[in-house]
Structures are given as structure tokens and as C-alpha cells.
């Protein structure tokens, strides 16, 4: 088979790229969910100004391509004395954008919480911070699991943009092999299958998590 020969020759190169893609996606997803929670907190606790600021932030990142922040952070930070590695810069850009999406997802789930619970929390003397951490956040996260899974899948595919700033992830591997051999089909099809693999793993994780916590619905 042509493809088995192809993979036998270039397999190690792909696996290295697969590692970088998985690592970046994992780190950026965790960061984006944390940042999304933080944005939700700002929206809830920051009064009118906080909510406005979060709205503006979300609008900005939702409506612009992520390549610009990737470039700005990677090429701009050294100019202000912060020459962070490419993976960190690219990951940060992904966190900033996907955090905006995550905060919107969490906001949607927040609306589904029964208001009575806030009165209950206040009546047992929980502080606002404790209410957020112990009452709001767990429920919001549980409600959001399927939507968060979708977002992580999108983030996973967006890691391909980091090839523009010298991260040797999967898409960069495909580009390198295409440059070398002129075999665009093979290079990109193998990469597509590997992305599909990562997407499948992500979906299994989120589906399992969803099933595990379904009692709470």
C-alpha cells in the first residue's frame, strides 16, 4: 500500500507532531476553561462595568481570526522583553480566544440554574465567593460539558495555526513533508486521520464525563 509505505517512512515525524498538537491542545483547553470561569466571575461580581468589559472582550475575540493575537503575542512580546517560547505564546492566544467562547457557554448554563438556590445559599450564610465556588461553578460546569466538548474540538483544530509561528505540530509536519516530496495528498490525509483520532479521544472523554455526572440533572 502506498500509505503504509508513506507512514513507515515519515511516521516518526508525524508522531512528534501529534505529541505537540495534543500537548498544546490539552494545555490551551485547560487554560481556556479556567479563563472562561474567571470571565464568568468578573461578569457576575464586577457589577455593570465588569459585565460590559466582559461583553466587549467576548465580542472582540469572537469576531476576529485568532491568527492576529498569535502573531501579536509571539512577535510582539520579545519587543517588551518577554521572549516566551512559541508554544507558550500560541497557547496563550488560543486561551484568550477560546476563553471568550467558554465564558459564553458558561453564561448560558448559568441561566439554567434555579434562582431559588441563591436564596438558599444566602439563607445558610454562604459568602458570595463561596456561593460562586460551591453552588454556581459546579453546576455550570456540569451543564456545560457537551458544549465545552464542542469548543475543545474547535480549539484542537485551531492549534494548526501555530504552524505559522514555528511550532512543529501536525500541520507543520504536513507542510514540511509536502515541501520535501510534493505529495500533498498523502501528507494532509494522514494528518486528517490523526486529527480525527484526537477529536475522537476528546469526544470520548467528554461523553464519559457527561455520562458520569448525569445524575445531577
Amino acid at each position, binding site marked *: 500500500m502506498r500509505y503504509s509505505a508513506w507512514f513507515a517512512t515519515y511516521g516518526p515525524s508525524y508522531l512528534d507532531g501529534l505529541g505537540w498538537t495534543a500537548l498544546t491542545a490539552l494545555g490551551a483547553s485547560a487554560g481556556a476553561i479556567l479563563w472562561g470561569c474567571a470571565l464568568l466571575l468578573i461578569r457576575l461580581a464586577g457589577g455593570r462595568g465588569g459585565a460590559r468589559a466582559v461583553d466587549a472582550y467576548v465580542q472582540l475575540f469572537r469576531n476576529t481570526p485568532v491568527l492576529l493575537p498569535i*502573531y501579536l503575542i*509571539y*512577535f*510582539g512580546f*520579545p*519587543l517588551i522583553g518577554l*521572549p516566551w517560547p*512559541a508554544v507558550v505564546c500560541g497557547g496563550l492566544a488560543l486561551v484568550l480566544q477560546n476563553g471568550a467562547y467558554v465564558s459564553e457557554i458558561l453564561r448560558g448554563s448559568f441561566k439554567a440554574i434555579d434562582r431559588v438556590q441563591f436564596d438558599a445559599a444566602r439563607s445558610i450564610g454562604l459568602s458570595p465567593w463561596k456561593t460562586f465556588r460551591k453552588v454556581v461553578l459546579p453546576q455550570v460546569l456540569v451543564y456545560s460539558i457537551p458544549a465545552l466538548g464542542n469548543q475543545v474540538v474547535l480549539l484542537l483544530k485551531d492549534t494548526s495555526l501555530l*504552524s*505559522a*509561528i*514555528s511550532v*512543529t505540530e501536525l500541520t*507543520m509536519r*504536513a*507542510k*514540511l513533508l*509536502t*515541501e*520535501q*516530496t*510534493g*505529495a*500533498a*495528498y498523502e501528507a*494532509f490525509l494522514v494528518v486528517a486521520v490523526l486529527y480525527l483520532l484526537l477529536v475522537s479521544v476528546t469526544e470520548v472523554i467528554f461523553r464519559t464525563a457527561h455520562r458520569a455526572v448525569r445524575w445531577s440533572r
Partner: protein
Amino acid sequence: MRRKALTSTVVAGVMALAALLPAAAAQEKSRLDVVLERGELIVVTMSTAPPFAFTDDKGQLVGFDIDIVRLLAQALFKDPGKVEFVIVTAEGRWPAIESGRADLGVGGTTVYPDRALRVAFTRAFIDSGISILVSKKSGIKSLEDLNQEKYTVANLNNPQMAERAKRFFPKTKVLTFDTPSAQFLAVRSGRAHALQIDTPTADYFAAQSKDEFEVLPQLLTASQNNAIYLKPGDFKWWQWLDTAVAELRSGSWYPQYSEVYQKWFGKNPPPQKFYLQR
């Protein structure tokens, strides 16, 4: 589409019979005949490789390679305008050729033996060395200067760059980008101190910002070949293109070739024959 292919096969078959050629000749019609019949060339190219193939301020496709293709059209149809350019990104070049959608391709494309397993190349229509462009601030004056751990070089994403980096400056750190502009930005932002790039491109940009960049006098490769690429297996078509390139570089079309060369590089091309001094 299918019917057209069928008709052309039939026509080719009839022609072969009429000429009483051996059976082997009754195969698929040569792309040369298809092109002549169509009265127009379909050429795949990049548009992001100055000074070979790029777009000007009005969005028009220009460059050295583009003018070379116009010379081919002039020879085939007596009209340099009979070209349909198909503009793709770097990765899009090969499928366009393999699928037979374009007759040939140009655009700062270097001949590598690995690539020649998939596409056919003519002989080179321009020599393109590889140079090192450094930021003036860095104070790097030679390859020896560059070969230190404290420096970083920005490469383009082809394996030959990585190999040359290992060979010429093994101690230097390396970053890999997918566009020349990102390489330049890396040098401007201080991410890298130097970059590896085709000599004509290095000269082109160094001339544009003289106080920022400098091209090291030493070349990493004195010469590498930029050539026309096409679908392999069509001898007649390849032969015509190869002959045309030979005539441009060292034969009857040398004057036209010189004119185009002057236009883009501001100097004369290499002499027509080594024993002729210009």
C-alpha cells in the same frame, strides 16, 4: 469533461492510425497539443514569492517567473497575454499539477530530487543560491560569526534549510516558519538574528530596507535550480518546455531573457556561454 476526454482520445487514435505510427504512439494525447488547441496556457503559481511571483499594489500578478511564462505564451501563440494563472498557496502547487488541472507550474520553485519523484522538472530557468540575511544590529559579518549558540536563525519549512543549518552553523539555534514574511518578522522582533532565503529574495528585500538588513557575502549554496514543473510522463510536452528554457538561457531567446532578468534583478543574467564574456 468526460466526453471531451473521450473525443480527444478518439482523435488521437485516428491521428496515430493515419500517420501509420507504431502502436505505442497511440496513447494519451500530449499536453502540448492540448495547449495549442486550447490557444491558452493554464499555469499554476504562488503569489507570495517576491521577486519571482507576487502581486503588485493593484493586485496584478507580477514577477520574474510570470514574465518567463509570458515569453512561453509569446512563443506558443504569438501573444504573451494567452495565459490563465491559477494562484495557490505553497501546498496547493502539487495537487494542481498531479490532477492535470494546470499545464505547468512556476513560482520560485526549487528542484529537489525528492520532489522529482512526483513531478517532472525542466532544466533550471534561473540559478538561485541560498543566502543569509542578517539584521544590521546583530553585528554578524560572516558565517563563522553566526555559528554561535547565542544566535538564532529563521528557516523556511523545507528540509533542505534544516540540513544546511546543521552543515554550515551547527551551533546556532533554529526556528522554522511557513512564510518568508514570518522569517523577516522574526528577525525584526529579535526572535532571530538571521534568516536563510533564496539569494534573489534576500537581495530584493535588503535593497528595500538598507539600514535594517544586510546580506552576508558568502553563499550557502552557490547555485540551486528554480525550474518549471509539470506532470511527469509526457515526453513531448516536457521536451518543448525544456527546449524553450534552453533557448532562453543560452540560445536564440537570450535577448528577451536578458531583458526580463534586468527588469527584476537590475543586472545582466549569467553569460550565454562560458566562453562568451559580456
